[in-house]
């Protein structure tokens, strides 16, 4: 009861004094819902460093790691203990929505947080070794059609994860049952790439940033990018899946959410911060260097997008025969 009262008074105090212009987070924190070193960790560390360096957020943002269940533990921790904490943002990616749709985040769903905005996106790609018999996406699909078991696919996620979804969608578009795919899961994209180079697997449905170094070195061939338009840089000569007749798109959007019960002023503060960040040319350079592509979507648009994506993944998972949660 006392805690509740305290929370209410704190909320009142903040709500009373603060408006969108002068709410200032105290001791802000970015939660990376994974162990150090992965994508979430980098999203938090790089974004908070830039937010501070560019003077968008004054107080130093610290990054904390809260690993467990690919974001599930952090999602539940926010619901249980920090529903109205305005000083915390949590990193999120498309992969989180895939899991949310499959009920891997417990009893909470996509309507239980406030989606702040995206800071960039990576795109799914399909990579094979440089000496692979598959020269185009069509070659890969033909082999799948002939015998789904003849193509060993491997990537960093489990069956049902976004890495699995990418080839599953291609297979589905080609009329092949995704469950017949021969899919090996590895601990991270790096191990899968090692297995590709070593010849254990024949195709890696990875991310553009993950395979960029290998592509530059000519070790691998990228059959298709799962993006709407061609990607710039080393990927400029790689056709999209859509160009090759398979309309499969898989942007891996990276962004943030906030606890559900922060005030509109507090929400507006963080949305505004991300807006300013996305517009800053210095950030745009940092983003490109990270292998991330532009994906400017913040505030209400992002909120709608997150909910729409999660719902689409729910339908998709049901279609390809995976467990899902209803709303």
């Amino acid at each position: 009861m006392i805690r509740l009262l305290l929370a209410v008074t704190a909320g009142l105090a903040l709500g009373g004094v603060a408006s969108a212009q002068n709410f200032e987070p105290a001791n802000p924190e970015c939660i990376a819902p994974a162990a150090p070193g992965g994508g979430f960790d980098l999203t938090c560390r790089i974004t908070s460093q830039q937010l501070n360096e560019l003077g968008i957020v004054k107080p130093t943002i610290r990054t904390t790691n809260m690993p467990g269940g690919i974001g599930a533990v952090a999602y539940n921790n926010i619901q249980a203990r920090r529903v109205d904490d305005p000083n915390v943002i949590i990193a999120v990616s498309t992969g989180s929505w895939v899991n949310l749709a499959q009920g891997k985040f417990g009893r909470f769903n996509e309507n239980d947080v406030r989606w702040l905005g995206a800071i960039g996106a990576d795109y799914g790609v399909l990579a094979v070794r440089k000496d692979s018999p598959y020269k185009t996406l069509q070659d890969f699909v033909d082999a799948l059609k002939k015998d789904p078991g003849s193509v060993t696919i491997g990537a960093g996620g489990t069956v049902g994860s976004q890495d699995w979804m990418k080839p599953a969608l291609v297979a589905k578009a080609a009329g092949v049952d995704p469950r017949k795919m021969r899919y090996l899961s590895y601990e991270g994209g790096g191990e899968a790439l090692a297995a590709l180079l070593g010849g254990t697997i024949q195709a890696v449905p990875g991310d553009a940033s993950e395979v960029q170094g290998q592509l530059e070195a000519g070790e691998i061939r990228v059959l298709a990018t799962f993006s709407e338009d061609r990607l710039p840089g080393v990927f400029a000569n790689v056709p999209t899946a859509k160009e090759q007749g398979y309309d499969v798109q898989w942007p891996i959007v990276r962004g943030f959410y906030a606890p559900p019960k922060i005030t509109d002023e507090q929400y507006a503060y963080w949305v505004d911060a991300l807006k300013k960040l996305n517009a800053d040319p210095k950030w745009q350079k940092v983003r490109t260097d990270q292998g991330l592509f532009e994906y400017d979507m913040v505030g209400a648009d992002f909120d709608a997008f997150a909910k729409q994506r999660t719902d689409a993944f729910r339908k998709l998972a049901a279609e390809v025969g995976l467990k899902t949660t209803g709303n």
Partner: protein
Amino acid sequence: MDAASSLAFGFSVAFTPFNLSLALAGAALGTAIGALPGIGPINAIVLLLPLCFSLKLPPESALILLAGIYYGSGYGGRISSILLNIPGDPGLVMTTLDGYPLARQGRGAAALALSGIGSFVGGTLTVLLLTFLAVPIARLAVAFGPAEYVSLMVLAFALLSTMGQGRTAKTWAAICLGLLGAMIGIDGGSGVERFTFGSLEMLGGIDFTTLTIGLFAVSEILVVAEGMRSGAVTNLGSGERLKLSELVSCLPAMFRATGIGFFLGVLPGTGAAVASALAYTAEKRVSNRNNTFGKGDMRGLAAPETADNAAQTASMVPMLALGIPGSGTTAVMLGALLMYSITPGPLLFTQRPEIAWGLIASMYIGNVMLLVLNLPLVGLFARLLLVPNWILFPGVLGLSFAGVYAATNSMFELLLTTGIGIAAYAMRKMGIPLIPMLIAFVLARLLEDNIRRALSISDGDLMALFSSPVAILFWLLAALTLLVPVLAPRFGRRIRAVSDSEGG
């Protein structure tokens, strides 16, 4: 540029007074942080990573600082493994086996010195190999397929089972417990939850730090509280320093362990835990004539220490040569490179030679710094044991819990640690060894994932596991490991009988 002149270039990058002092500062900081129970190199690097950015260091200096921290925290972890019986990192589990008994015998300073020299030998020899052979070795390493991994793991388990002399059943029980513990959480292949009982905290499985702190720190304090151990080590002051003869007697063990550590470290995903476990058990097979292993044998300390550092260093090979992180720590280092907008990959050596060769040079320097920094201080560290148990162990427990909380930010983990500690206390009472359990826990995932991959490729045909010469070799070695203790006594008698009759 050939390797030698490239390396000279790397040294020219690293050998500025500024970078050298960074390496030293990193080693000192790393040692201090790594010595905290439960904090291994990964956590130490992550904790100190912001420092690199707030200092606005250029990337090569940051990498040199990180390499210093990395080696330092590895060494710091040895301090808590040897003196307190709490390994801070999977690669240091085997260190406790002979290191802790040595410390209890008052040879803490000697053990720390030997461990430092062992890691120096393993690290330096491996960096040498890496300098000249990184690319061809990395090519071979990635060709290691699921069948080879499975047979290698089976060999590791076979060796592990021979560890508890005369307690084979209990050792197997411990191994099974470790395997079972590793099943908890989201299954890496299908994404299905196993043994989580609907608890979200269990989704990620049991964390290594949580398990280790529970198994060792918590159970140790229970044992102490029970009064089974009395007082601090008494003859610490008169404890002898490491003698040259002892060091020399360990050299063959160190060379063998370097080979094992290098080979296993290069393989993506295996890491230092497998390397040190194999090096220890193999060394025991070779050298344990007087049954001194596990009771404070110097070679039993030198072997896993050397292999650990050799493997840690060798895990840089896939990262530098192919841009593929071979271990958790290299993944963090790779992340650090990314934060500097450097794309790691096969072209790193040609595009950014100052980074690639600067890092290799800084590995040489980091190894030397550690010796310089720590050898004079081992006596001081060892004095930690002069603190009476009633202060020492509660203090260690407090720090351990702080470490667990820092790594996970979760109250649940603290409760889990306590629960595991109580279970471990019961296991110790029953004479079930803890180390095989912990190693089995670490290896279980590798074993399971690779069995799944191998069978998935072969469509369930078990023969796929015996499909390559390398795999068959490992299977044979595993079979020998299991059969020799059963058959050896008979053969031994026969051979003795034969030689007696020949001699007579």
